[in-house]
């Protein structure tokens, strides 16, 4: 058990990649606070977590920053510490650049960038005590500049920026801050596959490993690595978990 006794918060863990990470971490012994806006899905993740360790449930809209400090203090109140912070939640809508509005930017930054920033800030005193690990999420859409993703790409690259700053500032205190840039077969992608099977095939053929990642087996286990002692000397880095799609320099 590589995360035995650790305590983690995973945002957006009701479904998809967040759920995969929460499960992978619980299976390695971590207690997990699930944060999601969707009650039904979050409860189902909680039930799964409780088969392995102890979960906590927060049905919260984390675009409201007052909830964030509340979540941190409740987690620490219950478990006595915080070792792992995973900022995974992010909502956005695709639009062509010329049709992208301030509202779309607000959606992307308010659900993805600001919660990441405020969670890191609020968790910092606890992470300092535990010599903890932060795992943030970026995207190939940002790194490669995928069409129709202006608001998402901007927020994701902004997250990469603050991740490196925090890695440098908090390194001397023993806090590691890294990024995963994933591609995964989530429920959303499964739906899209049904409606656009030709595009889906095309996309798969452009991935060197010819498949999408699994939220738990691929993305979750990479997050476990970054949360474990095995990655103690890795900080400020972006780990591509994308089947070889993008090779960054």
């Amino acid at each position, binding site marked *: 058990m590589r995360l035995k006794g650790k305590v983690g918060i995973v945002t957006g863990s009701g479904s998809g990649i967040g759920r995969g990470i929460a499960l992978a971490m619980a299976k390695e012994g971590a207690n997990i606070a699930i944060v999601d806006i969707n009650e039904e899905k979050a409860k189902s993740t909680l039930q799964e977590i409780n088969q392995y360790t102890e979960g906590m449930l927060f049905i919260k809209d984390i675009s409201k920053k007052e909830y964030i400090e509340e979540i941190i203090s409740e987690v620490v109140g219950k478990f006595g510490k915080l070792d792992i912070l995973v900022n995974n939640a992010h909502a956005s809508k695709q639009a062509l650049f010329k049709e992208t509005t301030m509202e779309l930017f607000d959606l992307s930054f308010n659900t993805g960038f600001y919660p990441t920033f405020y969670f890191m800030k609020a968790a910092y005193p606890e992470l300092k005590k535990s010599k903890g690990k932060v795992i943030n999420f970026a995207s190939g859409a940002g790194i490669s500049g995928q069409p129709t993703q202006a608001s998402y790409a901007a927020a994701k690259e902004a997250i990469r920026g603050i991740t*490196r700053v925090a*890695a*440098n500032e*908090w*390194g*001397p205190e*023993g806090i*590691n801050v890294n990024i995963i840039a*994933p*591609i995964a077969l989530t429920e959303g992608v499964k739906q899209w596959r049904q409606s656009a099977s030709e595009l889906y095939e095309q996309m798969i053929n452009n*991935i*060197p*490993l*010819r*498949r999408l*990642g*699994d939220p738990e*087996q*691929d*993305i979750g*286990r*990479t997050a*476990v*690595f970054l949360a474990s*002692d*095995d*990655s*103690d*000397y*890795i*900080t*400020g*880095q972006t*780990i*591509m*978990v*994308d*089947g*070889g799609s993008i*090779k*960054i320099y």
Partner: protein
Amino acid sequence: MKIGRLDKKIAIVTGGASGIGEQMVDLFSKEGATVIAADINKEALEKVNQKENVIGMKLNVASDEDWAALAKEVYQRFGKIDVLVNNAGISSEKPYADINLDDWQKMLSINGFGSFAGIKHVASYMAKEKKGSIVNISSYTAQIGQGFNHYSASKGAVRALSKAAATTFGKSCVRVNALFPGIIETPMTKGLSTSKELVGQLIQATPLQRLGQPEDIANAALFLASDDSSYITGAELVIDGGFSAQ
């Protein structure tokens, strides 16, 4: 007993008789793998052969023939090869103006061709089984200018090669990734002329405020070798305490 993270896997680690390579060999065998420690140093191999689940084999990584023979022998004996770590390498601090063609060729043939030939001979056996993980060792000096002139160039070759091979062998489900160690405390780096004062400065300039240890690299290699990283290929994993993130 818990199941190891490389349970029943067959792994080859070049330069496996000392330094970081030896650390990897020990960690991989502890995690359930049968490890072939390939090394050019015959005496060191004798010590290796005394370890459980570790087999020492002589290999000059710069030799195409040596590689062909080793890959064939391992495949015939075990029926598969799951993991290859191209770890063997040499270093040099020779000043730019003093490097001649012989120096260049020696450096590039061991660090560059050594990794290339390993992939060439081992990936074809991995492709037969539609599974495999290759880990190359580049260096932070391939990403940022730090002197180490022809050494950096050879590690730059490893960097580019890893990405090219990831694309070439991706559809055969053979993954190829590269590790980028910062300054790691090993016999090789301890031999460098770097003064204590400079080491102190380096530590100050590293966000995590320490030099890397062989186990930091071995742990990262274990992750990339294991199925935990099964969707990662063509990637770069920098293990430098945040030095190059600044």
